């Protein structure tokens, strides 16, 4: 076994060991065992970094991959199939190596942050145990080499998300939110599961490689519609986990969990698992499936951004922003901007984790105040938090020199390129993307100014009669807001540093020149092209031929000639993707220009409204009240689902229970009681007729008995007389007859 595989297995299992150990022993350990959890993830992080440097830096090859597997279930010699084994294994390529570091690094930083943030909690040790099982499951998703394994870990992150959202389970809102998250994800998961079933039924394997090879060899015997369905169904898993429309409703509620959890699970890693998964199965997505993905992503990016601009809760703004950014990533995959989408996943993980941890620091310092209306002026009191939050905020908004700028622009350029190839209504996709970018800048600016600038407005908060306990608590500590301790500051600084451009590319304007977009390349589709797109995109295909020639010539002078050769040769095999890549290249500067305008406009508006106060937000909201309420109430999705799906299910369930009790069981009881009725009638019949006949016979016999008894007197004279009568009768009969 390769050392890399061994290391990855150890890195995978360490957090699990920590979970199992801590869940049983946390109360008995010093510090409730937090150092064990952090230590386990720390070692995992070191191993991941080793793997990262070996694979990404050492190999520096986009096509690198390393696999290992073992037989998990052996079905023996199956009739009609032959020997059938279900394998489990590990796949390490550039995607994996990068994700390993992202997950472990953020997890480790969150562990450190939580030591400060969760200090004094009743279930402190349990919290760290839960973090362990989350890290384990997330690493499992990253390392899995087959669909069954990823589904297994997919559900397990669902479990850890469930446990952590409901960490404060005594609060009803937390208990509701955890159930909602699990249920919503399950709906997505059954889609994903059906997608897996379609592929399994064709190839009798769950392995990515075998399935891709099978499709490429044309062994997918069902119609192409089924392949499209498989792609869309698999994407359903992403819709659930990555909170895409229409299953996005769970994520904002998931903010009921402790804030470090929101940073780790519901912003940086788990919700990005959906995007990672779509990237994994990207090659088997048909064009139709990609269109669906692009539309869902773009719509989600836009819709979530419209909601984020009116929310008051600091974490909810960030939650909707996460939904929106995940929409960008999904849109990126849908439009064929594979590498930028994954790039955005990574950059977003860092800056969003930083923003969440920063908001956690603010909440912690402000004595659990989450409403931005009662914050303000924290800039001077919390300089470290302010500085790191600002950097991450700028990265989210997409300011040049930040990581977010590079990745987001690459996606938007991809969307423009896609629209150029597909034409027509598909221009809506980049349009939605750019509009979302505008709103992103606005709501982040709004949050910035509300939280960190101006006067502190804590005293303006209306008294809440139900909140006596809370006030006593606050009075005790005073309203003094102060900077958080070092274990909470350090993660912020590291994450902010990772939100700056030079980590990924030397050229701040073009990520394509950096190492990241060198090792991550759009893989070749394995779907047999039907040829439609050839005509449809002829111009671009021609142009792309030219483009590739140019690029090819250019690459001669490049140092990494071999890999470019392979890559460009493969680009020819898929004219559609080549056309999109070409159009994307053309659109690059246009995208930068557009998004810069959006950025300036959005920030400017937020500045005018929330810093200068030239426009009063409340009065404006009053003027466009329906729109404002529509946004504030999250497009009423919760209400709609509640009225339809949830109520419908309960109605159906009650109907079924009624049916069961009254109709099905009623039939049984009817059969029972009618048998009983019949038995009683039968009993009557028995008594009256059958027994009556018997008694009647007895009666007749008795009657005759009585009659004949008269004759049986016992006197000889009577007998002689009777005999005489008989003899006389005989003679009379004999002579006359």
């Amino acid at each position, binding site marked *: 076994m390769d050392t890399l595989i061994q290391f990855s297995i150890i890195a995978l299992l360490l957090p699990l060991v920590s979970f199992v150990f801590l869940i049983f022993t946390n109360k008995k350990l010093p510090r409730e065992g937090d150092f064990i959890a952090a230590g386990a993830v720390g070692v995992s992080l070191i191993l991941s970094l080793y793997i990262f440097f070996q694979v990404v830096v050492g190999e520096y090859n986009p096509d690198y991959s390393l696999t290992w597997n073992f037989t*998990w*279930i*052996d*079905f*023996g*010699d*199956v*009739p*009609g*199939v032959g020997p*059938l084994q279900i394998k489990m294994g590990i796949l390490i390529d550039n995607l994996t190596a990068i994700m390993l570091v992202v997950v472990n690094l953020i997890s480790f930083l969150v562990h450190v942050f939580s030591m400060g943030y969760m200090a004094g909690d009743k279930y402190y040790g349990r919290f760290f145990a839960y973090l362990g099982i989350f890290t384990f499951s997330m690493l499992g998703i990253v390392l899995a080499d087959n669909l*069954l394994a990823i*589904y*297994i*870990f997919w*559900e*397990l992150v669902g*479990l850890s998300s469930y446990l952590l959202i*409901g960490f404060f*389970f*005594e*609060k*009803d809102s*937390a*208990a*509701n939110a955890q*159930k909602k998250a*699990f*249920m919503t994800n*399950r*709906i997505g*998961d*059954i889609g994903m*599961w*059906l997608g897996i*079933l*379609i592929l*399994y*039924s064709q190839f*009798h394997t769950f392995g990515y490689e075998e399935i891709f090879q099978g499709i490429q060899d044309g062994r997918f015997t069902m119609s192409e519609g089924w392949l499209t369905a498989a792609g869309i169904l698999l994407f359903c898993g992403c819709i659930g986990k990555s909170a895409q429309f229409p299953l996005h409703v769970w994520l904002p509620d998931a903010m009921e969990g402790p804030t470090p959890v929101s940073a780790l699970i519901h912003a940086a890693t788990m919700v990005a698992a959906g995007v990672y998964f779509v990237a994994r199965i990207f090659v088997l997505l048909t064009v139709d499936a990609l269109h669906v993905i692009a539309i869902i992503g773009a719509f989600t990016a836009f819709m979530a951004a419209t909601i984020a601009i009116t929310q008051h809760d600091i974490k909810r703004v960030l939650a909707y922003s996460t939904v929106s950014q995940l929409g960008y990533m999904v849109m990126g995959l849908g439009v064929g901007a594979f590498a930028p989408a994954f790039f955005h996943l990574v950059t977003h993980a860092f800056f969003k984790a930083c923003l969440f941890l920063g908001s956690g620091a603010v909440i912690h310092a402000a004595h659990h105040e989450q409403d931005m209306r009662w914050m303000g002026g924290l800039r001077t009191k919390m300089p470290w938090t302010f500085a790191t939050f600002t950097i991450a905020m700028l990265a989210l908004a997409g300011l040049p020199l930040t990581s977010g700028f590079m990745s987001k622009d690459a996606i938007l350029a991809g969307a423009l390129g896609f629209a150029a190839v597909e034409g027509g209504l598909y221009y809506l996709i980049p349009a939605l993307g750019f509009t979302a970018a505008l709103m992103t800048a606005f709501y982040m600016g709004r949050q910035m100014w509300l939280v960190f600038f101006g006067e502190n407005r804590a005293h303006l908060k209306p008294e809440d009669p139900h909140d006596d306990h809370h006030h006593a608590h606050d009075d005790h500590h005073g309203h003094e807001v102060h900077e958080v301790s070092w274990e909470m500051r350090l993660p912020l600084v590291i994450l902010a540093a990772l939100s700056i451009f030079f980590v990924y590319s030397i050229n701040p304007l073009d990520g394509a020149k950096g190492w990241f977009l060198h090792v991550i390349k759009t893989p070749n589709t394995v779907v047999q092209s039907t040829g439609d797109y050839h005509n449809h995109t002829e111009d671009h295909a021609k142009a792309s031929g030219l483009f590739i020639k140019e690029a090819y010539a250019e690459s001669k002078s490049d140092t990494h000639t071999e890999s470019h050769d392979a890559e460009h040769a493969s680009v020819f095999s898929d004219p559609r993707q080549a056309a999109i890549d070409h159009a994307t290249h053309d659109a690059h500067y246009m995208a930068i220009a557009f998004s810069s305008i959006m950025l300036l406009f959005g920030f400017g508006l937020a500045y005018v409204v929330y810093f200068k106060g030239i426009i009063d937000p409340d009065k404006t909201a009053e003027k466009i009240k329906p729109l404002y309420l529509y946004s504030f109430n999250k497009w009423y999705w919760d209400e709609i689902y509640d009225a339809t799906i949830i109520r419908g*299910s*309960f109605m*159906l*369930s*009650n109907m*079924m*229970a009624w049916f*069961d009790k009254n109709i*099905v*069981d009623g*039939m*049984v009881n009817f059969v*029972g009681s009618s048998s009983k009725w019949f038995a009683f009638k039968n009993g009557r019949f028995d008594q009256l007729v059958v027994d009556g006949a018997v008694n009647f016979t007895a009666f007749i016999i008795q009657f005759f008995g009585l009659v004949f008894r008269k004759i049986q007197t016992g006197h000889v004279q009577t007998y002689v007389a009777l005999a005489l009568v008989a003899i006389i009768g005989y003679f009379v009969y004999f002579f006359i007859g």
Partner: protein
Amino acid sequence: MLSLIVFLPIIAFFLILFLPGAQKQAIRIISLVAAFAQGVFSLIIWQGYDSTKPGIIAGESGNVHETFQFVERFDWINLEFGRFGTLNIEYFMGVDGLSITMVLLTALISIIGVISSWTIQKQVKGYFLLYNLLSTAMMGCFVALDFFLFYVFWEVMLLPMYFLIGIWGGPNREYAAIKFFLYTLFGSVFMLLVLIGLYFSVIDPATGNHTFNMVAMVDQANYIPGSIFGPENSLWRLVAFVALFVGFAIKVPMFPFHTWLPDAHVEAPTPISVILAGVLLKLGTYGMLRINFPFFPEVFQDLAFVIGVFGAINIIYGALCALAQLDLKKMVAYSSISHMGYVLLGMAAINTEGMTGALYQMFNHGTITAMLFLLVGVIYDRSHSRQIEKFGGLASYMPAYTFVLTLAFFASLGLPGLSGFISEAFVFVGSFSSEVTRPLAIVSVLGIVFGAAYLLWSLQRMFLGKRREDALYEVHEDEHGNAKIHFHDWKGSNDLDLREYLMLAPLAIIVVILGVYPMPILGLMTSSINQLVEVVVSYTSFAMN
């Protein structure tokens, strides 16, 4: 060896019979020892089992020793009827992949059941007499290879079950007991008729006589042409299949014959619910796999879709009904109906993945549902109520109980890493791979969602949040300011006590181990399942040629 496993409880039965009823502890210990010995012998059999031997069908010229293991075979009843031939009933036992998994499950559940019965106070002697009789009958059903012997065990099982529910049950116990008894008896009448018909249709190739040998009945070559279930008599074969199927389906229980189950569970005492859900329900599906499908393979193929439809109905209908229940035990009972639907669906796929999933689901449902019923018993002992909406916030006060219950609930809703997932997953894999049942698989995945819904919702209502105003327990603070709870008249430990740990921990460990690495159980069954699929599939191709 098998006889010993089957009749150990009968030895205990006679020992108890001669003990005075006041010796409660001795009676319990004898039963426990018998159950343990049964468990130990089952483990020995498990160790000695060669999983490459397929079972299901006899080897060369009817030699069952080639395929079955631990075979015991004697003439039992041998009656000469002159020109009508001889009535030949054998004492014939043996195991293959189908039965060994069920033997292990039965032994395990029997032990757990005895531990759970420890707190029974009413007529202890009578209770354990019946319990041991039941235990023998269950085990006998799974190892019998002679149909008559199987039928005897099947009928013997009814009687103790009837009294155990009818005497030691809840308030409405007599109704539930009689319902259970009549329903099952109704099913076994059909079985008896088919049993007789089969006897006159099948000859044992080794002796040339009519036989009740179930192994001989699998081989279609042993059916006499022109007899009632002979190969060309397709109408009567269909009738026989349906009659047998209904008999077994009542036991499963399959919609619409399921309503005895919630009543029986709600009334039955905890250990009897555990046995009922853990073992008895499996006899229905085991009977289908052992008898129904291989005896009439072509009918099975024709009706696979219909069976799958009923499986899908069970899954979704059971889950929806469970969602509406307010009694925790009734909810678990309906969840059993839902989960047994997966078994039906998996079998209807007629492929290795589906059938393996079904058989593995039988084992896993046995362990998981046993856990669930035990856990229901824990809270019922303390509060004398099972109303889901009469608690709230228990997680704060009963952490160990909450932990085990959460584990059991997640196992029940099919969380990966716990055994229920693997069986459900392969049921879906199999039923989707078969073109006949594919639409049903697509519909049935909804069961996964509803399953999560009723379990998580109950979990929330009982354990999460805060104590409800009308909760059936009181909270007060002790001198250290720690909140303690108090159940009305409960003297014991508030959280799980040692006995409860002893019942729950083994099941929990098995559920986890088999969820991570299923081969210890799944590996036993694969070659038998492959053989079974081969038997079912190949017969039709033979007929079509």
